[in-house]
């Protein structure tokens, strides 16, 4: 396999892993204010307690891999999205801190403050990542030397904002399905209701984004002419979306969770197809776009890193499996809980 394509695919895998895994814990942050009582909020927090940190490592590794494999794209994207990414960082910091510190004090005001911070940070981080995806679909003004030439306002386009909302809706759905799996009793019955509401919200935004993308973003489907099999992914995506209410209705939350994970994977895949072979599309001149060929590191580096990835990935899969196995089952609050 071509090394450039390999690294493009591996970045896709890392982004998919991140979106599925951190997706559910960001989603928990988005929906958790719907729980009213303190002990309920603690249950929700502890449902992701041991896992969110490891999930976020997927983002760190995605960033590191982008830096290493396609430094010109990393440099252009991160400096272009300067203010949004700074906001994203602040959101991620607040999230980490609010999870860690919320339950350390008994005071109700203390806990209310961190609950608010946890919600705001989770929703904002998700929204900003969605906006970055939307902007990437549209392309951003990149000059001939690979530097961004626009300003902040060039990033706040309606389509990008809409994709941001889709990200929030998707993670809210994914997070509530996850919570349904991890809770029991009265709380679980109420989360059942959240799932339905999140699904309705998701479905509305999803259909809207799909229509707008087909009508207004021709680049998104440009590659389908060369890759007819990509239609299969579209079909699977629709089936996965359709299976979510079916599984919820039949009382199979695991099936619903697998379906929402597949939906996320399909959306990331379609995002990749829309970009390929570009990483950053220049809206100023297509010739200045940063592609997997002109933005890449040397063959030697890509080969070394492929070895590192092959050596490391089985370990990563193993730890992830071990941790999810150790913390399987319903949440119980104990001495070591948040």
């Amino acid at each position, binding site marked *: 396999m071509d090394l450039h394509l390999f690294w493009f695919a591996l970045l896709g895998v890392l982004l998919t892993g991140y979106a599925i895994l951190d997706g559910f814990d960001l989603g928990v942050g988005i929906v958790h204010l719907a729980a009213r009582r*303190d*002990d309920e909020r603690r249950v929700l927090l502890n449902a992701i307690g*041991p*896992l969110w*940190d*490891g999930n*976020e*490592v997927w*983002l*760190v*590794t995605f*960033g*590191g*891999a982008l*830096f*290493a*494999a*396609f*430094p*010109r794209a990393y*440099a252009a*994207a*991160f*400096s272009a*999205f*300067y*203010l949004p*990414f*700074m906001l994203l*960082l*602040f959101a991620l*910091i607040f999230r*980490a*801190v609010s999870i*860690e510190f919320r339950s*350390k004090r*008994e005071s109700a005001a203390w806990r209310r403050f961190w609950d608010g911070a946890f919600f705001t940070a989770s929703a904002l981080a998700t929204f900003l990542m969605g906006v970055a995806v939307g902007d990437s679909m549209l392309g951003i003004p990149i000059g001939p*030397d690979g*530097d*961004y030439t626009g300003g902040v306002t060039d990033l706040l386009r309606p389509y990008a904002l809409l994709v941001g909302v889709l990200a929030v809706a998707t993670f809210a759905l994914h997070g509530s399905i996850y919570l349904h799996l991890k809770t029991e009793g009265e709380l679980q019955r109420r989360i059942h209701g959240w799932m339905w509401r999140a699904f309705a919200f998701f479905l509305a935004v999803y259909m809207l984004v799909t229509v707008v993308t087909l009508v207004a973003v021709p680049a998104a489907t440009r590659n389908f002419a060369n890759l007819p099999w990509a239609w299969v992914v579209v079909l699977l995506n629709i089936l996965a979306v359709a299976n979510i209410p079916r599984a919820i209705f039949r009382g199979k939350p695991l099936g619903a969770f697998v379906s929402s994970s597949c939906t996320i994977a399909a959306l990331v895949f379609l995002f990749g197809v829309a970009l390929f072979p570009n990483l950053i599309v220049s809206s100023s001149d297509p010739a200045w776009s940063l592609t997997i060929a002109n933005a890449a*590191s040397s063959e030697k*580096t890509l080969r*070394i*890193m492929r070895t*590192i*990835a092959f050596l*490391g*990935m089985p*370990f990563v899969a193993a*730890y*992830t499996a071990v*941790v999810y196995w*150790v*913390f399987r089952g319903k949440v*119980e*609050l*104990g*001495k*070591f*809980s948040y």
Partner: protein
Amino acid sequence: MDAVLLARLQFAFTLMFHYLFPPVTIGLGVLLVVMEGMYLKTRDLHYEAMAKFWTKVFAVTFAMGVATGIVMEFQFGTNWATYSRFVGDVFGSALAAEGIFAFFLESGFLAVLVFGWDRVSPGMHFFATVMVALGSMFSAVWIVVANSWQQTPAGFHIVGTGAAARAEITDFWAMVFNPSSMERLVHVLLGAFIVGAFVVLSVSAFYLLKGRHLEFARRSFTIALVVAALAALAEVVSGDSQARTLATTQPAKLAAFEGLYTTAPGGTRLTVMGFPDTAERRLRGEIAVPGLLSFLVWGDWNKPVAGLDRVPRADWPPVALPFQSYHVMVGLGFLFVALVAVALLMRWRGTLFQARWLLWTFVFAVAGPFAANELGWVAAEVGRQPWVVYGLLRTSDATSKSVPAGQVLASLVMFGVIYALLFAVYVFVLNDKIQHGPDEPAPPPAATTGGGLLAAAGSLAGQGGESLTSTGEAAGRAGGE
């Protein structure tokens, strides 16, 4: 204000803040392995209580390290786009290795370490502790390798010219084992061990002075004292070997550390203290040992060490800041050796835990290793200027051209506010944990259902569960003393 200066200030500020935390976790990680290993070996519940308490301190600090660490990774791209393009081929592979080998390892097993006491067997838990300790050291490996490559680049060639020039790897292992990487790694790790040990020494000394958790504090103090003594001694040796390498790889940096403006014939003096005056090109108020620097660097009292006059003026680093940072760091290093030597002697004679003045010294001495770690990095990084990659890329050419100064100023102010808040919360929570103290080791529950019942009661009662536990602890404490 100048965009380059702002970007540098932001990087320095966020990095120095971030670097308060990783040394604690690296150092505490080693101590956790020792404590839990002792528990497994002796089955003495005091060791278990120690491992559990220090794990809590570890976890809070780790969260701070993660939260402030992502900022560092993002900043290479957001603020240093030209630098990222230049070093991506080299630096990127180290960063990718760090993510894959270190971060996943530590964050995965951290979950078991913190939340898994009741969920896995003691052997499995110990394994997780070892993995977390190793993971935190691996992350130091890769980041120090990458930084050392910026100090002493090796195993690469330059492709392209002007603004499009970039370094490409020609020899991966030559890049990893570049002339300074292993020495610097040892220095960084030992520095972290000293920080971790002094944190434990400080808290334990506080308990001893207050007459709380005495058995816990004595044992924690002793283990940390041994680690601190070994690390502090080794650190002096490591610093000496680094300075010797510096003379050949980065002579301008060594000259700045020593305030050497001119290369004089014969032996070169080792400055103990002084005030560099770059305009006059001399040191004011200098106290120095003649010929000693020549002896330390070359093993020859009469062979001169190169001064800044051998370096083109445009390539001079600032002198005063690296000079003072370096000297204070070295001074602190010797102080640590002296302090732990006195403590070890008194421990051996059995008078340590009655010496209140010494225990109070240890309560506050914890600030020393933090300062020494930060100052060491200030000396290393400012001493590399005006280069971001030594001899290859100037710092002033390395920033993101597309990010205006106003945006950097805005983010810098935001970081200032958020980090101040974050630090206050961290200190607050840490203080809470220290005031609460370790759980006194209780005899094992009569039946295994005891823990489950308590947990169930806790989950039913919500907040009440915590007060239930703390009542239990208070009772245990009263019974224990």
